[in-house]
């Protein structure tokens, strides 16, 4: 399948970029609907960042508490996102998550069990009932392996029918996509290179599903792997799609802080869900001092009540260690700033005095292992030191809730790269279920789109040539080392557009980003095209800089604090801003424009699931008047 330019060419119906949970679930769906599907991923098959998810997949199955149902889950999700969520996505997610989890079980997943043999569910921050299906603290691995094995199962079916494992679904591992191709308005394919050889590869396909995850590698302290360079976000922008909610970045409250080489690596929220508590250097459980007004009636106000909750949830309120992640991260940040931090600049997370050693090893095996091996800390005997780490971006490609379709015909997105579902802050456990629910929907959306096409969009040779030249450029230059440019971007974003933001600092970051753009155009990569990480980074920098600009511009514009966006100069939540989405786009491919768009009001049957008193904390007077009208009718 070689063409004259020595670029491999492949024809597919659907190209899925990314092989984490969302990508694999999308690919499985597309293939199950009879579409020829390619999965393209930067790492080996089965290594995607989904493996890092520890806590579980949130799904209101009601196995542990029968009072749980989709409406409770929907409410928790909206609350967690401070009511900025795309409510249709939150609704679909809450309704469909149980089916998606059960389906995994039919594909071979082995979740931990309840006494009566059902899937066990654990407590997590922001979830009213025990809701997370889990396998110890390695749920992400179970999810990725199950989906990987499902792909293999489909390949085995195809081998039986067609004599070729890869007749309908093929994994292009260690392959990076650098450009999406278009015929007029519509997607016609994707262009990339094999990491192993540096050779180019062209996918001729009318539908592309982006499932590339997040952008964490623009920050120094992050729980994200090298793959998280915002590729899908940037590819979508460059293809003419919009990104929304880019100012909202989740700093997970508990990342490791020591040793320096593992700074940022995640410490699962399950530690708190299973009884772990946060203390400052004075030994105080400081989270009791940080319960925000909107959550006052939902959280325990004394340690005694919080402790009783673990065994009696009907009669006690949950401890404030289990507030949504944005609240906990800000509280830790504030304690450290006030000089009450731990020796290595975090706070103490202690489970050793809360559970017997054997129980800790059973419930949190990989945390026990991680601290033992990487930090010489035995979590059954001493507290951990933890601090906030850049973990997840709520913002992403603006999509249609039901189909995952972006504004560009033929382009779809699911998982972390899409925006809207989580509003301004994602609840723990809602990511794995998001991947499954919207991965499936994007795969189905792509299949349906293809069926509706009158003719197949064409790959235009000049676009391929442009993409080739763009990718090769760093190899021909003897410019600056890409690692240095990357490091400066990471420092800038970490220091100036981090967990707490102010206008001057964000403006300063934008000036730095502007200069970095110039430097990115000049970076050079030594060596050949064969497995050359310096060259790969030089190419990824384009994406990281573009996406960082989106984050900074949106962060500067949103003059309030909400979820994963905290402005020191605008500390309050402003109901006027709640309905406003900030939409990023680019026309010239290098500068970002941000516009305000008003989010449509929640459907009547959904808004009436909430108490008036709660809504009052989030909505404008005008919206409250509308609500009263609706409530009166129903």
């Amino acid at each position: 399948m070689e063409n004259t330019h020595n670029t491999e060419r492949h024809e597919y119906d659907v190209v899925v970029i990314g092989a984490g949970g969302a990508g694999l679930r999308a690919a499985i769906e597309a293939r199950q609907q009879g579409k020829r599907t390619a999965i393209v991923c930067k790492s080996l098959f089965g290594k995607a960042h989904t493996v890092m998810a520890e806590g579980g997949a949130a799904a209101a199955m009601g196995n542990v508490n029968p009072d749980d149902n989709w409406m409770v889950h929907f409410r928790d999700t909206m609350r967690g996102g401070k009511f900025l969520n795309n409510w249709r996505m939150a609704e679909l997610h809450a309704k469909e998550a149980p089916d998606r989890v059960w389906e995994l079980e039919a594909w071979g997943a082995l979740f931990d069990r309840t006494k009566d043999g059902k899937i066990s569910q654990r407590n997590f921050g922001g979830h009213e009932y025990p809701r997370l299906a889990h396998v110890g603290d390695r749920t992400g691995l179970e999810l990725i392996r199950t989906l990987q094995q499902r792909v293999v199962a489909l390949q085995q079916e195809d081998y039986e029918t067609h004599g070729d494992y890869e007749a309908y679904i093929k994994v292009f591992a260690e392959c990076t996509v650098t450009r999406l191709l278009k015929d007029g308005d519509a997607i016609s394919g994707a262009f990339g290179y094999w990491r192993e050889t540096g050779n180019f590869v062209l996918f001729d396909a009318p539908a592309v599903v982006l499932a590339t995850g997040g952008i964490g590698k623009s920050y120094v302290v992050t729980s994200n792997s090298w793959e998280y360079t915002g590729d899908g976000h940037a590819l979508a922008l460059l293809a003419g799609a919009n990104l929304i909610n880019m100012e909202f970045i989740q700093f997970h409250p508990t990342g490791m802080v020591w040793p320096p080489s593992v700074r940022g690596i995640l410490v699962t929220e399950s530690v708190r869900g299973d009884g772990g508590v946060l203390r400052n250097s004075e030994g105080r459980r400081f989270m009791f001092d940080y319960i925000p007004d909107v959550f006052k009636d939902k959280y325990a106000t004394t340690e005694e009540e919080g402790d009783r909750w673990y065994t009696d949830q009907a009669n006690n309120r949950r401890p404030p260690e289990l507030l949504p992640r944005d609240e906990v991260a800000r509280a830790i940040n504030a304690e450290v700033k006030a000089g009450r931090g731990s020796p290595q600049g975090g706070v103490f997370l202690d489970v050793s005095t809360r559970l017997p050693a054997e129980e800790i090893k059973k419930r949190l095996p990989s945390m026990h292992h991680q601290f033992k091996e990487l930090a010489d800390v035995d979590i059954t005997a001493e507290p951990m030191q933890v601090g906030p780490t850049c973990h997840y971006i709520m913002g992403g490609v603006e999509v249609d809730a039901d189909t995952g379709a972006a504004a560009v015909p033929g382009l779809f997105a699911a998982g972390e790269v899409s925006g809207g579902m989580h509003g301004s802050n994602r609840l723990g456990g809602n990511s794995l279920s998001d991947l499954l629910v919207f991965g499936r929907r994007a795969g189905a959306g792509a299949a349906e789109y293809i069926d509706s096409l009158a003719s197949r969009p064409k790959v235009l040779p000049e676009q391929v040539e442009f993409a080739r030249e763009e990718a090769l450029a760093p190899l021909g230059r003897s410019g600056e080392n890409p690692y240095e440019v990357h490091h400066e971007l990471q420092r800038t974003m970490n220091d100036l557009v981090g967990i707490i933001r102010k206008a001057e600092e964000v403006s300063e970051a934008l000036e730095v980003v502007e200069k970095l753009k110039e430097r990115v155009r000049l970076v050079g990569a030594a060596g050949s095209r064969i497995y050359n990480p310096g060259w790969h980074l030089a190419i990824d920098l384009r994406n990281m800089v573009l996406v960082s600009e989106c984050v900074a511009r949106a962060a500067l514009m949103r003059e309030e604090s909400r979820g994963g966006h905290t402005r020191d100069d605008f500390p309050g939540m402003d109901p006027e801003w709640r309905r406003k989405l900030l939409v990023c786009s680019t026309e010239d491919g290098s500068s970002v424009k941000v516009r305000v768009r008003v989010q449509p009001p929640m459907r009547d049957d959904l808004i009436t699931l909430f108490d008036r008193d709660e809504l009052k904390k989030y909505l404008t007077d005008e919206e409250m008047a509308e609500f009263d009208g609706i409530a009166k009718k129903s």
Partner: protein
Amino acid sequence: MSYKAKFKVWRGEGGEGRLEDFTVEVNEGEVVLDIIHRLQATQAPDLAVRWNCKAGKCGSCSMEINGKPRLGCMTRMSTFSEDETITVTPMRTFPVIKDLVTDVSYNYQKAREVPSFTPPSGVRPGEYRMKQVDVERSQEFRKCIECFMCNNVCHVIRDHEENKTNFSGPRFLMRIAELDMHPYDVADRQEAAQQEHGLGYCNITKCCTEVCPEHIKITDNALIPMKERVVDRKYDPLVWLGNKIFRRGK
């Protein structure tokens, strides 16, 4: 706190290569993968290495450190003395693509040859009921992060390229055991384990168990019980008679 360490790192591509000497800074708390990254950033920008999570959860950075299969991200520099020269080479059992990166496609091919989870017909999603105690054994095997170090270290294929066709390695023999012990799997896997995947080649030297970064007891809990199941089947006269009369399994 920080010192200069001496490293020898395998460099090369296309079947050729050599150990290259480096002197490189090491700081407190660092792991071997940090040092490889420092080499990339300061001395050898095109040095090839696979990695992802840097927390021992994805199994990408398998390499041989002073001749032992290890994850680069879980090997702390403090386990070596400051004057020791540390030798880093790619996994030996798989062909080298470049530097520390090997072609591990053998493993993906073997994965495909193991028939997938086969539930009984008629059990719908959501209807599965299993006791914790019944899923624990297979759960242990599902902890596998597919670093492929067990397959790398296994002497059946480490120095015997010719055995690769008939031997799936500890990783995938364990996968067969995992499915065989899954409470809902109905496929007959025991004969295939012996005939097609080479279970008989394993002479339980436990090298795989020793290198497993997840501390899975591959030999004791997967391979030996699997061998016992195969043997029980093969030498049980009633089963033999049953097979003759009812042509079971055919």
